[in-house]
């Protein structure tokens, strides 16, 4: 009896063990499936599909009083443009949808939308609550007639664009797993008021505002990874180019590296704690790094050529830069401590201005195509294969990836002067001009802002 009573718990233990590590017991039985799961097959690569989105005119706008109606129109326009620019939608607007005879009943209208090829519907309404605009929007999957994301936003009229951006980012999140970039910003420098000053603007070119007023030459802005500080170069101290920091919230400027006669091209580390930059030692220029307070300056490169334009990788572990050590300016990558140096561009006689893709797998840069013209190219860091994104329209330089990796801001002479544009990384399409006043240079796209 004793032995059997000992065996019983043992038996339970064995059962538990057997259950715990149940590899599929027999190959003929249906494979284990969690109840309420779905089963899908992955057998070929598939592209993230472009979603055809029906976005009819937002009803309620015309019934609003003057200023409210203007704000509502701005909201709608901004939302439309944000979604187009996201690169994941093809929009069917009021013009294309005008051929339909809609009933207002989704069950009956859904098939009409689908007859035009739409897979999703953006149903939105705008109304007034006191002095505030209320947007209620739903993204609907037309096949299942179910809401993918539904949101309600309220804000004063001056927040119309922000409401649209916020909703657009939310929609993009639900389709791509990454937030949209509609709330990001681009830093640049411009001579529009007679001096070269640092500016910043919304990602779509709206709300351009001045960051510096040194009335000297200020250039080469670089965002910190947190989006609260811009490092830049300025000559205003009189001793040659030096590095400064601008705090965005307070507007406060502070010196970063001012010793020496030439400090240039700062690049924040992604954690915002260090800055890589170029410093001249006599006729030679090398890459250096310092802490955020300007202390701990260390030299990273040691070559006879000129080393410039460092760009810190998104992981913080590598730095790309331009060096002429081989006889012509080419891109190199090294570990952030200066070791493990390797050259990554071998085509073209002049490659410069590296910007990392947010996933750290690619570099965008400018490559010279004839004596005075550059084009933007993207280099795959594994295969070292490069793909040209611009061709035949002016000189294109200074690329900067958006934080979702879908767009690149750059400068181009295609419209006269030097202006800032943005385009799709996939194929250089969907080009949009972001600046028009004066000449504008060196766009640097912020990380996601809070």
């Amino acid at each position: 009896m004793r032995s059997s009573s000992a065996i019983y718990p043992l038996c339970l233990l064995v059962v538990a063990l057997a259950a715990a590590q149940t590899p599929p017991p027999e190959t003929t039985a249906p494979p284990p499936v969690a109840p309420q799961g779905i089963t899908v097959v992955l057998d070929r690569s598939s592209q993230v599909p472009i979603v055809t989105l029906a976005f009819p005119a937002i009803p309620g706008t015309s019934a609003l009083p003057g200023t409210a109606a203007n704000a509502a129109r701005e909201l709608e326009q901004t939302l439309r443009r944000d979604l187009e620019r996201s690169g994941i939608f093809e929009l069917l607007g009021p013009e294309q949808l005008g051929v339909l005879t809609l009933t207002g009943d989704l069950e009956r209208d859904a098939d009409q939308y689908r007859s035009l090829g739409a897979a999703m519907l953006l149903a939105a309404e705008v109304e007034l609550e006191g002095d505030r605009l209320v947007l209620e929007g739903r993204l609907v999957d037309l096949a299942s007639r179910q809401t993918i994301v539904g949101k309600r936003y309220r804000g004063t009229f001056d927040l119309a664009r922000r409401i649209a951006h916020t909703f657009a980012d939310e929609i993009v999140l639900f389709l791509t797993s990454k937030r949209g970039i509609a709330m990001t910003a681009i830093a640049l420098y411009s001579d529009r008021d007679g001096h070269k000053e640092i500016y910043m603007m919304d990602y779509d070119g709206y709300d351009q505002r001045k960051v510096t007023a040194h009335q000297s030459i200020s250039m080469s802005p670089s965002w910190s990874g947190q989006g609260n500080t811009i490092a830049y170069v300025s000559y205003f101290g009189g001793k040659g180019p030096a590095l400064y920091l601008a705090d965005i919230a307070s507007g406060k400027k502070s010196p970063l590296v001012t010793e020496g006669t030439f400090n240039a091209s700062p690049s924040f580390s992604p954690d915002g704690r260090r800055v890589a930059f170029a410093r001249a030692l006599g006729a030679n220029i090398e890459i250096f790094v310092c802490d955020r307070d300007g202390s701990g300056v260390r030299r990273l490169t040691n070559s006879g050529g000129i080393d410039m334009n460092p760009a810190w990788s998104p992981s913080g572990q590598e730095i790309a830069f331009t060096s002429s050590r081989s006889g012509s300016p080419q891109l190199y990558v090294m570990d952030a401590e200066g070791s493990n140096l390797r050259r990554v561009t071998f085509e073209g006689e002049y490659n410069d201005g590296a910007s990392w893709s947010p996933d750290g797998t690619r570099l965008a840069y400018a490559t010279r195509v004839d004596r005075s013209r550059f084009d933007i190219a993207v280099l795959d860091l594994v295969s070292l294969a490069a793909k040209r994104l611009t061709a035949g329209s002016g000189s294109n330089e200074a690329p900067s990836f958006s934080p979702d990796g879908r767009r690149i801001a750059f400068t181009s002479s295609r419209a006269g002067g030097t202006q800032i544009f943005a385009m799709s990384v996939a194929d250089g399409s969907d080009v949009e001009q972001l600046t028009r006043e004066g000449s504008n240079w060196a766009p640097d796209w912020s990380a996601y802002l809070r």
Partner: protein
Amino acid sequence: MTGSVSSVLEGRLDAQAAGSFRRALVVAASLHFIVVLAAWVAPKLLAEPQPPLEFVAVRIVPAARLGVEQPKPVPPAPEAKAPEPEPVPEPKRESKAPALPDPKAKKEPAKPAPKPPAPATPQPAAPPSSAAQVQGAPTGALAGMALGAPVATFDNPDFTYGYYVDQMLAMISRNWTRPLVGGGVEAWIHFEIERDGTLRGVRISRSSGINSFDLAALRAVQASSPLPPLPRAYREDSLGVNLIVR
């Protein structure tokens, strides 16, 4: 005397030893038997309390590809090759309350009432004509649509979002590099998608028999976290996915 005493003692010892050995043998044998029995029975026993699985293995083809290559309302030919023997019951999509859910309202329309019968008693597929948007590629003017034409059914009748499956497959396939093994290799990866798109419990639920293939498939899925958040109208906290990687 001393010899006989010791031999007697030895004899007793032998007998004792033989007796305990026999007992041990019996215990060991019965334990083995129990273990085997337990291993065989346990999964069935444990599975029993669960409702019969509504499991239908279906081939899902990204709608975009169908829209381009298969303008006719015919499921892609390879469907016949799917090794799963169960026929595909039509989900009762029409039975879902189809009204546009109101985001202000906290409550969803009632859940779809009857679930399709268990696959053990497959029902004949409904004529596709009556459920054009349920199965097959879009027809006619719908042919060009990029998304949203569900071309497959799910064993979870609550999950009706073809677009989500398209996005998921596209994101995973971007991370998937097939090892150089021959054809006919297939690994099953199981995982749960949380509301916010995070993946949990990624594991091999059925090995391909080739370790490198299993691990590559596993890595492709793990590298795809997070996926997009689950659609708002889908009310469960998570979604289980059985991914068959070929």
